[in-house]
């Protein structure tokens, strides 16, 4: 299907998007879906650092065969509107893992939009998203989980935490669960808060300077998103990309 026109904020999946940036990007970019098929029993892991000074929209459709696994780990540190969208379909016993971090200041919006369809029984999915923003920066997570009527023993989890370093920054989270089966586990949680001032003072009282204290606390906060990533070098790359974006953030 080709989009004839740009979406509007009335479209649920675009409700927090930066419409001005989308107009600059143009409709054609929205039609560019990547398709990834993971065959039965196979597994795939993708690591991505996304973000530049221009709008970026990355749309990926992932289809997982029986018992297949796919893991996506993304640092989204856009300097302009940056959207990463994942549509995932899980066959029987498949697993989808997603760890995502949005981080940044300025006035840019960065977002993750996921739609995870548990089409068949016994599939599992786990999504951990962390958002760290300052200035008037925004981080969004729109996460939809659909469980088909016969997809019994589905186990789906979604966890979002936002950390706002100053007033003016924002985080929006929209969990949507559509469950038609009756023997499933679907967990979701969402919180938004500020930096732990007690922990920051504790660190400073031991000699850690304010910027390092902030970096350590942010590192601990976003670390959850990459905790299931076994490859230490890749994990370090994703963390470093996020933490280098933090330089220049308000202390």
């Amino acid at each position: 299907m080709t989009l004839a026109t740009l979406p509007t904020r009335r479209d649920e999946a675009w409700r927090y998007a930066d419409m001005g940036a989308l107009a600059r990007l143009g409709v054609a970019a929205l039609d560019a879906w990547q398709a990834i098929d993971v065959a039965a029993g196979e597994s795939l892991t993708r690591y991505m650092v996304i973000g530049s000074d221009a709008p970026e929209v990355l749309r990926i459709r992932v289809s997982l065969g029986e018992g297949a696994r796919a893991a996506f780990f993304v640092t989204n540190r856009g300097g302009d509107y940056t959207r990463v969208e994942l549509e995932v379909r899980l066959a029987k016993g498949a697993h989808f893992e997603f760890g995502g971090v949005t981080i940044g200041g300025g006035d840019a919006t960065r977002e993750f939009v996921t739609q995870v369809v548990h089409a068949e029984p016994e599939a599992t999915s786990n999504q951990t998203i962390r958002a760290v923003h300052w200035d008037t920066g925004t981080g969004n997570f729109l996460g939809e989980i659909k469980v088909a009527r016969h997809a019994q023993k589905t186990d789906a989890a979604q966890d979002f935490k936002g950390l706002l370093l100053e007033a003016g920054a924002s985080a929006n989270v929209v969990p949507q669960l559509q469950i038609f089966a009756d023997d499933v586990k679907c967990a979701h949680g969402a919180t938004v808060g500020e930096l732990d001032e007690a922990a920051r003072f504790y660190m400073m009282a031991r000699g850690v300077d304010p910027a390092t204290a902030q970096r350590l606390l942010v590192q601990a906060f976003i670390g959850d998103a990459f905790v299931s990533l076994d490859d230490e070098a890749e994990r370090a790359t994703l963390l470093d990309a996020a933490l280098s974006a933090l330089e220049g953030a308000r202390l």
Partner: protein
Amino acid sequence: MLTITDLHASVGDKPILKGLSLHVPAGEIHAIMGPNGAGKSTLANVLGGKPGYEVTGGSVAFRGQDLLALDPHERAAAGLFLGFQYPVEIPGVSNVQFLREALNAQRKSRGEEPLSGGEFLKLAKEKAGLLKMDMEMLKRQVNVGFSGGEKKRAEMVQMGILDPAFAVLDETDSGLDIDALRIVGAGINAIMRSPDKGVLLITHYQRLLDVVRPDKVSILAGGRIVETGGPELALRLEAEGYDSVMA
């Protein structure tokens, strides 16, 4: 080493310290006792530079510097250690990472070379041993899942690693059983009992002072030091209570 002169401080709009003066020279362990609400923890927090504590008058000189003009991390680099009454949990950050960052930040600000990972671990192991703490605990997240006593022992391990010139210890004995109290007290002696170091030891109880023998004891009440004496003052308090001393 530490000279507090006519210190006034408020929390919110409430004045807590009301003209507190105290001098602790190098080589002295000075115990501060006093009833609840006297301002003991406020004194510790003001010395550490905790946000929310406003100094409204007076001065604090520390090793020739205006302590109150320094940020908390600069106070640490200048040689001040604040032992917390309630040590803070920091999920996601290991003790080893935290303390190495802290020590190297202090060394950097003093113009010293940073310690390598290996050198740091050797030092940490030695100090943990002093406090009879398993190195495995230091690899865990800062204070997360530690019992009250373990947190206080970990504070002393931190003090040992950072090796400050002066320690302000805020009720380091609270929450300790008898054995842990002896270990912590012996740790304070080992780390801080020195002619060129000083300690301000805030406590409610004589039992810590049986292990860490103070050179001086002051009573803090109503936001000021109302009496200073030798160790016998603490014994008198233990026997007679604050009313008799302050009457």
